């Protein structure tokens, strides 16, 4: 009976199966089209702006004689480096330690912290810009606490970007640390180790490949953020390494070039966008390769 029905419906079932697989293929192509369209236009329109001046000069307004004389974006490259670097400097330790707490604790406080982190990752990032503007640029003077503002500066940008990174790192670090098998932790416990010792000497080293990936992915997301730094870093056109000074950054420079009245500057925005994508891709791929290499080293 089963065999008879199975034989009779076999053709139809094979046809349905093939149709479904084809449907999946179409969906896949549709999903990939925008991605490749973006990459294609980025390379096609952006690559021609990549020359020595682009990387080493500061921006200048094009003259009527030579509309392509627009300098470069070295200020934005260095600005991004400093702003994101300083942000990473405080966000990575805080994020990883908080993530460790989330992974190791089952307390109410840990649950509240996890929910907070989830809400934080969902906040519109421009709120962080407003927050940084108030706290760092203008200064804080409430409840008897007085913090002088330091004006438009790279630090204000780092503050906003760092706060954006912390919850992302926290959640990703928690996931990586939770990936360490319970049996490994129990092995440590059974040897009389305190939980802090197990975390430091067993859990973190074991989770290191995942932690590195988590941190770098959060960092690469922050590198492309524009809203939090839109008006707090001062958009300087000169090169500066001093975090207290005004600076530029790559995402901001894209915005400024693309909205400028000069055609050549608007076109140059593609070049900056391409650079930004390349940086993000390199960090992404690099973190994966590094994690894979770490994993291999252990065998």
């Amino acid at each position, binding site marked *: 009976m089963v065999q008879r029905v199975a034989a009779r419906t076999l053709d139809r079932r094979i046809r349905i199966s093939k149709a479904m697989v084809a449907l999946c293929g179409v969906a896949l192509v549709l999903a990939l089209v925008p991605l490749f369209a973006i990459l294609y236009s980025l390379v096609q329109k952006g690559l021609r702006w990549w020359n020595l001046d682009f990387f080493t000069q500061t921006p200048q307004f094009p003259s009527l004689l030579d509309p392509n004389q627009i300098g470069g974006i070295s200020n934005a490259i260095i600005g991004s480096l400093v702003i994101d670097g300083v942000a990473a400097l405080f966000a990575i330790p805080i994020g990883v330690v908080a993530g460790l707490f989330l992974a190791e604790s089952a307390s109410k406080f840990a649950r509240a912290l996890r929910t907070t982190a989830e809400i934080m990752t969902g906040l519109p990032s421009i709120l962080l810009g407003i927050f940084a503007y108030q706290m760092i640029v203008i200064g804080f003077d409430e409840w008897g606490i007085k913090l002088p503002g330091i004006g438009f500066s790279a630090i204000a940008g780092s503050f906003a970007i760092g706060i954006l990174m912390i919850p992302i790192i926290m959640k990703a670090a928690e996931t990586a640390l939770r990936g360490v098998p319970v049996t490994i932790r*129990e092995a440590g416990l*059974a040897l009389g180790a305190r939980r802090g010792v197990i975390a430091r000497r067993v859990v973190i080293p074991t989770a290191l490949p995942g932690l590195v990936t988590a941190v770098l992915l959060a960092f690469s997301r922050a590198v492309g953020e524009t809203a939090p730094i839109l008006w707090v870093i001062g958009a300087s056109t000169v090169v500066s390494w001093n975090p207290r000074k005004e600076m530029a950054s790559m995402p901001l420079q894209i915005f400024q070039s693309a909205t400028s009245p000069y055609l050549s500057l608007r076109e140059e925005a593609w070049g900056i966008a391409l650079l930004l994508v390349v940086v993000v891709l390199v960090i992404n791929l690099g973190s994966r390769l590094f994690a894979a290499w770490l994993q291999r080293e252990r065998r």
Partner: protein
Amino acid sequence: MVDPMTMATVSTGMSGQNGSPRSGPISMRFKDVAVTFNGRTAIRGVNFDVPRNKVTSLIGPSGSGKTTLLRAVNRLHDFTKGAVVSGSIRLGDTDIYTGGIPATLLRTRVGMVFQRPNPFPTMSIFDNVVSGLRFNGIRKKAVLEEAAESALIAAALWDSVSNRMKAHASTLSGGEQQRLCIARALAVEPEVLLMDEPTSSLDPISMRLIEELLGELKSRVTIVIVTHNMQQAARVSDLCAFFLMGSDRAGEQIEVAPTKKLFSEPDDPRTLDYIQGRFG
């Protein structure tokens, strides 16, 4: 120093329905021990003495609470929300829950080997063996090296790893990894070694090696082993405790007796049914 409890000669009155007289120094004493998780009883009615420098096996079908009982001895339930261990488990003359001994110190006196080999994956063979010493603040290289050699010799692993102590633990075979875990536990010099089905994930040859090891190890440590393998219990243990799951799905102690007696003429008909393979 010798404490009075361990020197005490204990009659079998402690062991419930167990008829045959037995004597000798005891290492641990279970009295009315029960473990519950959020009010649900996993095991109860545990009353027996663990003889010093002998192998005691805990047998019974799945769900009879053997592993739960074993983990209670190492206070591994401390981190499980809703877990309550009642009754008294004494190690020497110290109640391990109410006697004021910190759990971390207790665990240096009671080692544990788990069902699957669980060496620390980022550490070398050497670092794995001495990890328990390092966790507890021992740093002197000479001390660590001596402890590592002694523990590896005791675990019958020294000959095959002495020339590659810096290699990762993951380069060892499953059986070698389990012996590494035994060495790691022994290096801390515990009085009691708990083993939770230590050979269930190993091939027969590795299993045999570890079984042979147990006979040699018991001169330096008291062993309590959970096993599903009744032949194994018969081969390696001196005392055998049999558990069953009751009608309310809670595990309980059925019979505790010298292994020879339990496997030849048990007092309880349920024990006989189990060892003859009639259920479980």
